[in-house]
């Protein structure tokens, strides 16, 4: 943050007066500045919380922005009930630790209420249903700003996203009519029926997230680190076998040492073979990998080149 720590009596007078000003400090200041704008100027902001590493970092930043108090924003989890059990356990523990209230928008309840229609084929993903459930929750709770952990480096449509992005009354994203973002002047005003999406990690990379996790001592779900898991090989990916992801006929179940590089639904998130069991080992692995984060693990991005753009236009996060 471009700051100098108080010197102690043991330091020599020749010790440098100025602490190194790192790129991570800049990214943190940029994120806090944006969070202050949203938390001070929006009426009912909420944190989108999936239990993944990006939302864990945002939760930590929201807590810093609320210092010395507790964050006055609830966390909203759009729950497909296709989650990794380890992530749900982490979600509850992390939100309790940070004193943040959990609100669950349930895809199952939405299906029962007839809000959305489920694809009944085996192993089908509920990913596409999340947008409608999210927008329903926005209307129900009256949220005017949703803070999320999306990063521009994840995907090309996200590279065009603003840090504060307006969604129209049907939740849609209109990439052609985005507000200009100038200097670091944030404009959280919006018209009636519209809401904002706020992305404090816009300019962070996967590596930045891990560096920050290490520096700040942020806890993450255990599945980000190497563990043994029954998997099948499907379309060049390792898919964990579980109640919502049964092996297809003819697929051989094998046990492998894997970790998850991203965390989404069990039905659309693949594992990678990895022995990285600590943060430094994970960072070394990312530094040498030749595959992008979503390219390695996200089955939902493989629908078409434009699947993310299309989902964002429909209100996806």
């Amino acid at each position, binding site marked *: 943050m*471009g*700051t*100098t*720590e*108080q*010197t102690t009596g043991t330091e020599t007078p020749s010790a440098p*007066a*100025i602490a190194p*000003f*790192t*790129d991570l400090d*800049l990214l943190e*200041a*940029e994120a*806090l*500045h944006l969070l*202050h*704008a949203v938390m*001070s100027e929006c009426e009912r902001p909420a944190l989108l919380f999936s239990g993944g590493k990006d939302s864990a970092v945002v939760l*930590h*930043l929201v*807590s*810093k*922005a609320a*210092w*010395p*108090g507790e964050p006055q924003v609830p966390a909203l989890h759009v729950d497909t009930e296709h989650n990794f059990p380890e992530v749900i356990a982490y979600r509850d523990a992390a939100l309790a630790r*940070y*004193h943040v209230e959990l609100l669950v928008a349930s895809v199952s309840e939405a299906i029962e209420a007839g809000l959305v229609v489920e694809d009944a084929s085996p192993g089908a993903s509920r990913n596409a249903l999340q947008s409608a459930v999210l927008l329903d929750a926005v209307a129900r709770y009256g949220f005017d700003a949703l803070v999320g952990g999306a990063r*521009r480096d994840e995907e*090309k*449509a996200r*590279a*065009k996203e603003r840090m504060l992005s*307006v969604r129209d009354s049907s939740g849609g994203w209109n*990439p*052609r009519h*985005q*507000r*200009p*973002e*100038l*200097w*670091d*002047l944030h*404009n*959280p*005003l*919006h*018209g009636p029926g*519209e809401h904002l999406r706020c992305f404090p990690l*816009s*300019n962070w990379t996967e*590596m930045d997230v*891990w*560096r920050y996790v290490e520096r*700040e001592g942020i806890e993450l779900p255990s599945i980000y680190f190497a563990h043994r898991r029954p998997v099948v090989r499907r379309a060049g990916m390792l898919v964990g076998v579980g109640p919502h992801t049964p092996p297809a006929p003819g697929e051989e179940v094998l046990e492998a040492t894997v970790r998850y590089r991203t965390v989404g639904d069990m039905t659309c998130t693949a594992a990678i073979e990895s022995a990285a069991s600590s943060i430094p080992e994970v*960072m070394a692995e990312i530094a040498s990998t030749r*595959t*992008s984060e979503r390219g390695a693990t996200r089955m939902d991005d493989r629908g078409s080149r434009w699947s993310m753009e299309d989902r964002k236009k429909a209100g996806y996060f």
Partner: protein
Amino acid sequence: MAPLARDFVRVATSGSVDDGKSTLIGRMVLEAKQAFDDEIEALGGPGVLDLAQLTDGLREESEKGITIDVAYRSFATRRRRFLLADSPGHVELTRNAVTALSGADVALVLVDARHGVVEQTRRHALLASLIRVPHLVVCVNKMDLVGFSRDAYDSVRDSFEELSERLDLPDVAFVPVSALGGDNVSSRSAEMTWYEGAPLLAHLEEVHTSSDRNLVDLRASVERPLQLPGDRTREPGVVLQVLSGVLRDEEELVVLGGFESSSEPVPVTIRRLAAPAALRAPAKTLREARPPGIVVAALGGVASDQGGFWPPRGSMLCRPLNHPAPRSEIDAMVFWMGDQPLAEGMRLTMRHTTRWVGVRVSSVHYRLDISTLHRDPGACALGANDIGHVTLVADHPLWADDHARVRSTGCALLVDAASGATLGALTLRGPTSPPASLRGVT
């Protein structure tokens, strides 16, 4: 392994239609080995890659082979971390180019070696000059299509230098490149041995940005007031962002805008400067903070007759003898992006630092023709993507600096309060902080 302390350089790229800008960005990212295999595969496999596809992320962009909206891409070399803001050359020119250029350390302007300096080049150079981007690099691209001719390069260079004489561009460099072939991008081109300068990436690694930051004029903006924990003296607490200058513990400062009802500076002393922590942990004590650092502080020394003093979001801390004089009449260059014209008498709301202030457009002095640099004083309204000189009258006094002196307090947005739409960008001009006489300071 992740490097520890790297500086972060923001680069805005702009060019005209078809001058190969997206291709150059793709090439830089590729040569810095920052593109992943699955991204490269999506460009059409080995051989001649469609490098533009690395950044043209929208369906319409790919189908039309153009860039529509500003895209951001991070990449790093061994020495530096870069954030590229790529703006389209033709669509909504002012809106997108100003978006990319605002906050940029380096403007990278592409020129097609076959066409030389064209109208679009002049516009981009003018915008970079008006936004005061400290460094500009002219990439003379498509050198392969002019036989790597030194004459072609020299001619572009000469005409750009003639243009830049009339502009405020403190640092201009030229690099002849072929983005398609990778000549002079990361390594020296064997085809252009006559070029003695550094390849583009080496140049970007070397650009001296550390002197660009203003560490003289202290401006610290209140992000929010807060109640300090365990505070017996009831001193007001604030979260501050240091916008310029250096903020030190135990320093005697003044707060501008501390009271709603008065624009008089209120003297305070910074006590217990600290970095905010998560999980309600104790904040880490600091001796000083630099921009854009976010810190918490207690404000001591507030006179006892000023009970209830709690500086609101948007108030600002400065040194007693170095602060902008509060003023309601604001002179500014405006970059207008609204569909409705900006006209005299119009009412808008202005975003300055973290404050909202209502303003009225009192006069439009001239419209600047961004192709000829001609000033049209007959204009009394500005259309979409026009640039002009205006005077605004604010409902409450602002503590604004001249943009040339303090970038962060010398810029603002014009917003339509009803819809929330951002309609204009402002670079503020005007009297820079004659030391005000201070009531209550001895």
